[in-house]
């Protein structure tokens, strides 16, 4: 019974794909498209704990199930698929090859969900292959030269990857004596087997130097496909390694060294390659490569020091989910951006895209920062020789990601992507949903699995400066590029233009005020003059002054406060008398003060 639930979750998309071949059912099926991944999501949410179900009846015997890791994987993967399929429904509405896309899309979905739910190597491999090959159809969908080239590259890598993976799985199965993944990952596999598995999954993961297929494919695929390719499918590589490689059991220090080195190179080399891209989606693809470099760092450390693995594993899962949601949101954002007809809408979408972009870049308190800090903590128990370098690389990865994000957003405006005529808001909804999920991840994650979330939640909130530095570099570069583009003179003029505009406006404001003031200044005296003449204010002032002076004199004590100064003046008799007033003055003063004192005493 329970197996059938699992089979339903995996088979429902397949069934829809089959039904899509029947023309009359297509409209309703497209409408139902967002529901395709719903069973898997519900399964992931509702299954209470680790579960293993077997169906011996199925082919060679089938084992499916969920454990802590795969439960989280299936949840974020199905969320991504739901978002992508609701976008695809609108994206593909008028596409002549919509049916083919739908079929391939659903098949890839089925494969992706299936490999997560599989517990044995055969089923896993089958699902993995289904996903990989079906994705070819997604990559090649537009059929233009670029898409074809990308698809050719993609399929080449897929084929080689499947071969290597198959060899690795077979070897592992032989060595562990079981086809159950569980057994493989608890067996001491040989170095070769692990190497094959790592390379096989590494191709899907896109770690350098196995990344060549990834950016073109992500660029060529239609937006909903890119979102799942980047958000969900490359995580299948990680999931495969987590499932099949005996991490935390045996130390593979050579493998670990190589993976770590590859990861470190990946982070920054992808930056260098990514910033050279012209359009947004390949840039985002390189950003995915760069992010997978981070994950590779964790993997490498785990390979090297098994003791550190229990701390690293939950962080890697978190990072996978974080990147899946964020990158999926960004890809859908590109679609939403392209669907906007007007400038305002584009600006709005760009601003909205800043949220997942900054989350990816690791703004403090975002899932990006928490994940990276948690990874640093987890690595602390690993190799001490590597630790400082790892931490440095992780810190600087924030700068790298910021730059890539900036480049992607800039590329959006410089080389606007095309979109089929669709309802912009319909495309915006899944984008916003994923973006919200990416932002809210630190809150959601503990609700899903508090045990797995603990290391992340305990991590330091992260530093702002990498993002700020990246933003600064990006802005500087953008400005200098623009300056080169328009020429220095025009650039200086442009630099000054806001100042000029402000001063110009200030000036016009000021001159308007000045004109007004001048008008008032002219009018008021004229009016006053008129009033003065009409009411003969000058004449009235005479009377007024007489009254005022009399009033002041009447109200003041009849004692001069201004004492008379001594003067030599004529006496009536014609004799000169010196009026000796200074004494008088002091007398009056004394009297005054005495009077005052008396008053006060009273």
């Amino acid at each position, binding site marked *: 019974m329970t197996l059938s639930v699992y089979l339903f979750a995996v088979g429902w998309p397949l069934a829809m794909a089959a039904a899509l071949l029947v023309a009359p059912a297509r409209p309703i099926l497209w409408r139902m498209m967002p529901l395709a991944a719903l069973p898997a999501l519900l399964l992931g949410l509702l299954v209470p704990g680790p579960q293993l179900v077997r169906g011996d009846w199925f082919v060679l015997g089938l084992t499916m199930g969920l454990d802590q890791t795969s439960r989280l994987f299936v949840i974020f993967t199905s969320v991504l698929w739901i978002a992508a399929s609701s976008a695809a429904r609108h994206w593909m509405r008028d596409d002549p090859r919509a049916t083919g896309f739908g079929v391939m899309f659903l098949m890839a979905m089925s494969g992706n969900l299936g490999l997560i739910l599989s517990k044995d190597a055969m089923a896993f491999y089958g699902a993995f292959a289904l996903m990989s090959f079906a994705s070819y159809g997604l990559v090649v969908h537009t059929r233009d030269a670029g898409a074809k080239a990308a698809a050719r590259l993609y399929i080449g890598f897929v084929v080689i990857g499947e071969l290597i993976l198959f060899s690795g799985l077979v070897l592992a199965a032989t060595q562990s004596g079981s086809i159950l993944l569980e057994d493989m990952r608890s067996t001491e596999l040989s170095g070769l087997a692990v190497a094959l598995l790592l390379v096989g999954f590494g191709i899907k993961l896109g770690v350098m130097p196995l990344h060549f297929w990834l950016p073109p494919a992500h660029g060529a695929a239609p937006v909903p496909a890119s979102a799942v390719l980047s958000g969900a499918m490359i995580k299948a590589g990680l999931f495969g390694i987590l499932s099949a490689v005996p991490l935390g059991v045996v130390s593979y220090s050579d493998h670990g060294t190589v993976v770590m080195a590859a990861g470190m190179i990946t982070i920054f080399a992808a930056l260098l390659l990514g910033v050279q891209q012209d359009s947004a989606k390949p840039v985002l693809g390189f950003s995915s490569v760069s992010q997978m470099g981070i994950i590779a760092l964790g993997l490498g450390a785990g390979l090297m020091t098994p003791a550190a693995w229990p701390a690293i594993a939950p962080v890697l899962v978190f990072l996978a989910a974080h990147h899946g949601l964020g990158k999926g949101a960004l890809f859908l954002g590109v679609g939403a951006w392209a669907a906007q007809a007007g400038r305002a809408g584009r600006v709005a979408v760009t601003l909205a895209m800043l949220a997942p972009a900054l989350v990816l870049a690791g703004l403090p308190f975002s899932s990006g920062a928490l994940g990276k800090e948690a990874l640093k903590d987890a690595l602390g128990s690993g190799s001490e020789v590597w630790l400082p370098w790892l931490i440095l690389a992780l810190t600087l990865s924030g700068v790298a990601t910021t730059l890539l994000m900036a480049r992607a957003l800039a590329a959006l405006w410089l080389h606007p992507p095309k979109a089929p005529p669709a309802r912009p808001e319909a495309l915006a909804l899944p984008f916003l949903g994923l973006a919200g999920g990416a932002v809210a991840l630190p809150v959601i994650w503990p609700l899903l699995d508090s045990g797995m979330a603990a290391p992340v939640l305990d991590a330091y909130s992260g530093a702002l400066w990498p993002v700020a530095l990246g933003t600064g570099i990006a802005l500087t570069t953008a400005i200098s590029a623009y300056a080169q583009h328009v020429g220095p003179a025009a650039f200086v003029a442009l630099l000054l233009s806001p100042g000029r505009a402000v001063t110009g406006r200030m000036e016009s404001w000021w001159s308007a005020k000045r004109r007004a003031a001048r008008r008032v*200044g*002219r009018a008021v*005296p*004229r009016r006053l*003059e008129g009033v*003065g003449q009409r009411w003969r*204010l*000058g*004449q009235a*002032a*005479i009377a007024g*002054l*007489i009254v*005022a*002076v*009399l009033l*002041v*004199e*009447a109200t*003041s*004590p*009849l*004692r*001069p*406060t*201004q*004492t*008379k*100064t*001594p*003067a*030599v*003046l*004529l*006496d*009536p*008799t*014609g004799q000169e008398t010196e*009026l000796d007033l200074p004494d008088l003055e002091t007398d009056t003063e004394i009297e005054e003060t005495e009077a005052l004192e008396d008053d006060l005493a009273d």
Partner: protein
Amino acid sequence: MMMIDPVILTLFLPLFGAIAAFVLPRAAAWVGLLAVLATGGAVAALVRDVLAAGEVVTQLGGWAPPLGIALRADGLSVAMLAMTAGVGLLVSIGALDSLRDLRERQYFWPLWLLLLTGMNGVYLGTDIFNLYVMIEVIALAAVGLTVLSGTKQAVRAGLEYMYASILGALLFLMGVGFVYLQTGRLDFAGLIAAEPSGAMSAALALMVVGLLLKTALFPLHFWLPAAHANATAPASALLSGLVVKAALYIFLRLTTYMPLPDEILVTLIGMLGAGAVLWGGVQALRAERLKLLVAWSTVVQIGLIFIAFARAGQVGLSESWKAAALLILAHGVAKSAMFLAAGRIKDEIGHDRIADLDKSDIRPTLAQFTFALAAISIIGLPPSLGFIGKWTLMEGAMAAGYWHWVAVTMIGTLMSVAYFSRVFAGFLRFDRMRGELAEHKGWALADAAPLTLAIAAISLGLMAAPILSFIELGYPFGAQ
């Protein structure tokens, strides 16, 4: 030969001159000039006497007050006399040249000499009834000068001036009546000795208001701009430079002998002065004609002089009168120069509309230069006498802590820069001329008089120290 007292000569020479000029209309100009010169000589003798004695007192006809009339000359009054004589002489010289109309020539000299008599009488007088008579004489002569040009505007302005002037004099007379009622005496000494009483207060109020009306302190200035602007140039120069000073002088003397009973009153007068500075400044900025602008600037300057008076404060008039006296002298010299120059400009260009000054292809450069020099003194830029007056005023105000008067003075200065620069722009702008620039027409005697006055206004500033010590001779306001 019997030496006649220069005090008496100062008073009677212009009077006889006036009569002679009236009787001999053909020779009026020469008679007048001679009389002014002779008066100047008498004043010079008086200066010598005052320098020697400190003060000179003469009783007219040998009768002592209160029945007789005593004349007294001290530093301040002689300084005023000298200013009057000097300015009068130069204006007379200017008038020789600029008055062309026969009727104007005929009446100008008797009126002007009568005016001179009146002013000399004011400066020498020691009793208030005499002062009343003298200001009436001045008023009648001044009105005569105002209407000299005979235009309708001039007559109308003159009539208005007449009403204000007579009313002011009558208010003064009423005050005189009260004083006599109270004390039975009219001389200054009697005023000093008088006990404060209600009648004396009323007398003071009436006299003060009468004098304010005659000095045209805001808001009693309504008659002044039209009267000064519409008179002929020499008349304007005399009216603005000299006539208002007579009333100011009486005010200065009177408020010393009958101190204003209250600080509030002093402040009130200061506020009226501030009002004059501001309102006059605004009106000068608005004025469309050059002479009107100059007339409004007189209103401003009178306000400034009252501010100088009002910052008396605790120190009393014993200090502040110096600033007022310096400003009176400076304004007398500079303003008469300015009016004469403005008259010259009007004569040469044919109009005095400020807005059209720069359209004229004739540039009376010398008159313009004179105008600018006079403006320097009136604005109060160093080293002119106006600057010294303003310096003394601001110094006193600052020392007494009266910052508001300092502020008003500074605002007034800035406004005066603003309104005079309107005129300078008209002088110096050349891109709106109607034709080729005509050459300078050569100099006239009428240019020399204002130029001399303007140069005097500036260079007297360098002689401020001797002037100050001179006006203190005879302790006009007490020996501090």
